[in-house]
């Protein structure tokens, strides 16, 4: 089969030997599409990834992120488009011809081989000398802190240890690009959080390029330097975690990433450099001028719950909120205590519901609100994002 693909060995050699400096363009995905039967799993995705990046593909299940990853690894061939690694098209190359390794979701450790042999597997295939293999394996074992477990079989390891073996095995060949398919999905919450930190540390230390696939937006936000959100086979937005959270490009992304209050716009009124948007559920809201004009599409106003501040309603209004900002009257309808924060649901007098997330900055609950207490919810125009519905 290699004969049909002239130059694939050359790709592996050229790319495999070359070390890419951080920031250099490493991978270009260009108009890639894949159809299974009549289902268009990946629909014209284009994306550039630089060397040294920690990139996350985020999306709900069935959005095509795993298919895209499998095309990068070579387990699926794209129907259309190119995948350029270091300038060479590898779209049709077989998995073993690519200087890319993958860490599988279920780890896919070879059950008949010990930890040592699992890690050495790829090195033996690469024709490395025995002594070099031993050195590299020892290095990897130390790197992922598996010392003393080299002789164990995978079924004698805990979930976290297996995850480390899988990581060490994928890293051992020093790939140009490491693909991680839901690497932490099988771990419990505490272990997941500590492993997130270790993965980030490792990526920084090795200066390697990681692409991670996940459905967990918190995980993507924590680890990745850039996130690509996928929906229905398309890239909906590519941005930094902050950009994604604070400036989502659509209503769907705003809802998918974190919690958000959304109000449908009914009217639009320009007031100097500010825009006043009339909503049915929250009345008129003053918002900052959106960066891009939307034309005549239906709009929504999005406010993150932690941007909403609450004040007591009384004869004398508390200081701190002037007249230019949005003030909505309501009563506390629901209280959800989460430890670090408390989420209040405010039933607005205008009819809608508004979520406010308040940090519990004091141990004693002098600041806490009680059920049915009248409050003022307020936020600035800059905290609102206007989105096309």
């Amino acid at each position, binding site marked *: 089969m290699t004969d049909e693909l002239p130059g694939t060995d050359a790709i592996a050699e050229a790319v495999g030997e070359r070390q890419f400096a951080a920031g250099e363009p490493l991978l270009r995905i260009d108009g890639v599409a894949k159809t299974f039967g009549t289902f268009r799993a990946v629909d014209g995705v284009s994306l550039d990834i630089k060397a040294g990046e920690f990139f996350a593909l985020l999306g709900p299940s069935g959005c095509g992120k795993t298919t895209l990853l499998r095309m990068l*690894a070579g387990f699926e061939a794209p129907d259309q488009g190119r995948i350029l690694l270091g300038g060479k098209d590898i779209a049709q190359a077989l998995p*073993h011809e690519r200087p890319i390794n993958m860490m*599988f979701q279920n780890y*896919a*450790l*070879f059950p*008949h081989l010990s930890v040592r042999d699992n890690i050495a*597997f790829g090195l033996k*295939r690469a024709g490395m000398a025995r002594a070099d293999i031993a050195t590299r394996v020892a290095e990897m074992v130390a790197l992922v802190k598996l010392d003393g477990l080299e002789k164990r079989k995978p*079924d004698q390891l805990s979930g976290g240890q297996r995850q480390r073996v899988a990581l060490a095995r994928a890293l051992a060949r020093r790939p140009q690009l490491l693909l991680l398919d839901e690497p932490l999905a099988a771990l419990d919450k505490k272990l997941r959080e500590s492993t997130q930190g270790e993965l980030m540390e490792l990526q920084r230390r090795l200066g390697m390029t990681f692409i991670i696939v996940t459905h967990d937006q918190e995980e993507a936000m924590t680890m990745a330097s850039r996130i690509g959100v996928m929906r229905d086979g398309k890239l909906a937005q590519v941005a930094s975690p902050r950009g994604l959270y604070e400036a989502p490009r659509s209503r769907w992304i705003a809802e998918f990433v974190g919690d958000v209050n959304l109000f449908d716009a009914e009217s639009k009124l320009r007031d100097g450099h500010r825009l006043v948007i009339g909503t049915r559920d929250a009345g008129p809201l003053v918002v900052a001028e959106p960066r891009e004009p939307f034309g005549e599409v239906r709009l929504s106003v999005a406010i993150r719950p932690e941007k909403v501040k609450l004040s007591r309603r009384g004869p004398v209004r508390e200081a701190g909120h002037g007249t230019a900002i949005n003030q909505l009257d309501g009563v506390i309808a629901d209280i959800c205590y989460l430890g670090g924060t408390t989420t209040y649901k405010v039933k607005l007098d205008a009819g809608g519901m508004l979520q406010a997330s308040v940090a519990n900055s004091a141990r004693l609950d002098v600041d806490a609100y009680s059920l049915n207490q009248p409050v003022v919810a307020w936020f600035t125009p800059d905290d609102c994002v206007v989105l096309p519905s």
Partner: protein
Amino acid sequence: MRKVSRLSRFNVASLALGLAFLYLPILILVIYSFNASRLVTVWGGWSLRWYHEFFNDRAMIEAAWMSLRVAVSSATIATLIGTLAAVALSRGERFRGRTLFSGMLYAPLVMPEVITGLSLLLLFVALNAERGFWTVTIAHTTLTMCFVAVVVQSRLGSLDRSLEEAAMDLGCDPMRAFVAVTLPLIAPAIVAGWMLAFTLSLDDLVIASFTTGPGSATLPIRIYSEVRLGVKPEINAICTLVIALIAVVIVIASLASKLSSSQGESAAPL
């Protein structure tokens, strides 16, 4: 403290009844094989006389040797072809008529042996093949191949496909990935399949009697023709030896599968 897993009296009784039903006839056969008397049903004291008789019965020894050779060769060929068929059906790309093919592979499992035997006989006659060792071997391969395929395919089905993908990701071409990862993991099933094929071939009377020729009778055929003239105690001795052989094979098979299951994943279905 009471043991939770203790058997109740009812369980013990039903277990004993079941085992007796299965093994009493065999036990009687084994005991009578050590009978000194010439009459099968009359006990005349312990003796190894009939074993001695068997080892001096050239025709019987030849039949036993024939049976062993047929069993080993047909089991080996059947394991090879059956494993390949199982791999093709569970790993190959989905092709048109795949379901039909796997259905057709299983058909011989339920086909009456008389029909298999007769159709093979007709085939060999049509081909003008000389009937003997090879025709029986081919016929037994036909019979046992589907058993091997079923055993191996069920093991392949329970194997995680991402293991092969991981091997390819780590630098194996598809063939190498199969040899380095899949083959060691399905080895217990292949061994079990071979053992199954071996015992089925050793045991078969119907198909062998259709497809064998003069002068190359297998042990079951020989025994059957002897018994028609009256049961000689020698037959008991032969049967006891066959039982011993099969018991050894089964013990080895289960030990092998236990050994490999302690290395990882579940044991092969046997």
